[in-house]
């Protein structure tokens, strides 16, 4: 296993405390707790619509929970959003690739928005798309786009990786590369949270079944009604 390009010295810890989520006026999950320490991995699974993506967006600070808190190193992330954001990578369903921009430019741009310089070549190399570094996004196949999106993880360092169905569209080779990267990242002191429906080798990962936090139908109705006047679905 090659050494990770980034090493994280200070230990880190991510905690979710009594998290609840309401979307479109409907309670999705409630009373969700977990603790994840440096080097750890958390695998989110559960049937469609149980809130995996919503949880990841809450953890990324993109969606506001209906209740509960997320703590990063013991402090609520809402109190230090900017600092927290710069320590995480979120790879969601959207690849954030422009048809007119090449992967190299894209990685450079995103690293710049984080105030850093991209390790673009190394990152593309690690995802097996070094040959496409200068091919505009419009010429890429679905899996190639996904690989470029994942290359963001390597192009600039971040302790916490939040990955929403990262294996979608990936072939076996790319999946293996991703697994290796996650392993190295954890070995270097990083944290990984992945939502996926497919098999993914994440040795020693904790598993969280979102279906277990589903509110009962009755509760859901009550919460939904109550939430109508509160701040369901607020963001950022």
């Amino acid at each position, binding site marked *: 296993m090659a050494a990770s390009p980034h090493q994280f010295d200070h230990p880190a810890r991510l905690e979710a405390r*009594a998290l609840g989520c309401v979307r479109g006026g409907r309670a999705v999950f409630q009373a969700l707790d977990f603790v994840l320490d440096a080097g750890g991995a958390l695998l989110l699974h559960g049937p469609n619509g149980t809130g995996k993506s919503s949880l990841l967006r809450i953890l990324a600070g993109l969606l506001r929970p209906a*209740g509960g808190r997320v703590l990063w190193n013991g402090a609520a992330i809402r109190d230090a959003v900017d600092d927290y954001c710069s320590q995480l990578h979120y790879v969601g369903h959207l690849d954030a690739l422009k048809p007119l921009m090449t992967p190299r430019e894209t990685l450079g741009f995103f690293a710049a928005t984080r105030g850093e310089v991209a390790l673009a070549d190394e990152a593309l190399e690690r995802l097996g798309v070094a040959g496409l570094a200068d091919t505009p996004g419009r010429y890429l196949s679905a899996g190639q786009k996904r690989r470029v999106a994942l290359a963001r993880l390597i192009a600039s360092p971040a302790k916490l990786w939040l990955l929403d169905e990262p294996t979608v569209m990936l072939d076996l080779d790319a999946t293996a590369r991703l697994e290796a990267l996650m392993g190295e990242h954890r070995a270097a002191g990083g944290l990984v949270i992945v939502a996926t429906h497919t098999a993914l080798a994440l040795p020693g990962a904790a598993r969280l079944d979102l279906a277990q936090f589903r509110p009962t*139908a009755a509760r859901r109705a009550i919460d939904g009604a109550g939430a109508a*006047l509160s701040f369901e679905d607020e963001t950022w």
Partner: protein
Amino acid sequence: MTPTPDEAATKAAPRRARGLHAFANPARFMRLARAIFPFSAVIAATTLIAGVVLGLAVAPPDYQQGDAYRIIFVHVPAASLAMIIYVILALAGAAALIWKHPLADLIGRASAPVGASFTFINLLTGSLWGQPMWGTWWVWDTRLTSMLILFFVYLGYIALHSAFEDPTKGARAAAILALVGVVNLPIIHFSVDWWNTLHQPATIMKLDRPSIDPSMMAPLFLMFVGFIAYYVLMLTIRVRSDIIARRIRNLRLAQSAN
């Protein structure tokens, strides 16, 4: 999971705001609204009827304009309400953004159509009046122009509100707009004033202000009170139905989940 009150807001909110938060409780607001409802309904009905009777039958015809002037009894109170309601809209927007007061969202949402209607009534009566008085339906006079723009501001507010499927998001967006708009209103007024006076002098004969006779003042005042009562009435009805509609919607969504 009961919806926890927004933490940051509670921490930062001044005491008064927390007091207001008490009304955010839908049940309490519903009780209040129920109490207000009959009063405003009765006041609106009586004053409007009295105003119309006084205005149409009792007030003497104007010595210059004959009976056409009677349109003033609708025209002027409508203009006042149009402006008052915009102020309320902006205050509600501020309350929604700064104190995150949920009821403020509903008040803004309920007020805007009423304000827009009054603006429209003012424009309509004004232009109906303009035809006999000025010989044209419309002139690009400063007051008329700024009223037209106010109408657009209302339409924008309503449109933005309804463009979001999620009512809370729509409310926040509209609140931002209302606040931005309030900065702008004086500017519009001022600039439009300036625009007209700098260009060619008004080609339209200006109407002399009728010296207000008490018999004209009374219906004017009654209509004004009636319009305000009507606004309060609409507000309570719409806020209540909004709360109920959201409950129903959420119940339906919750059921359709499984």
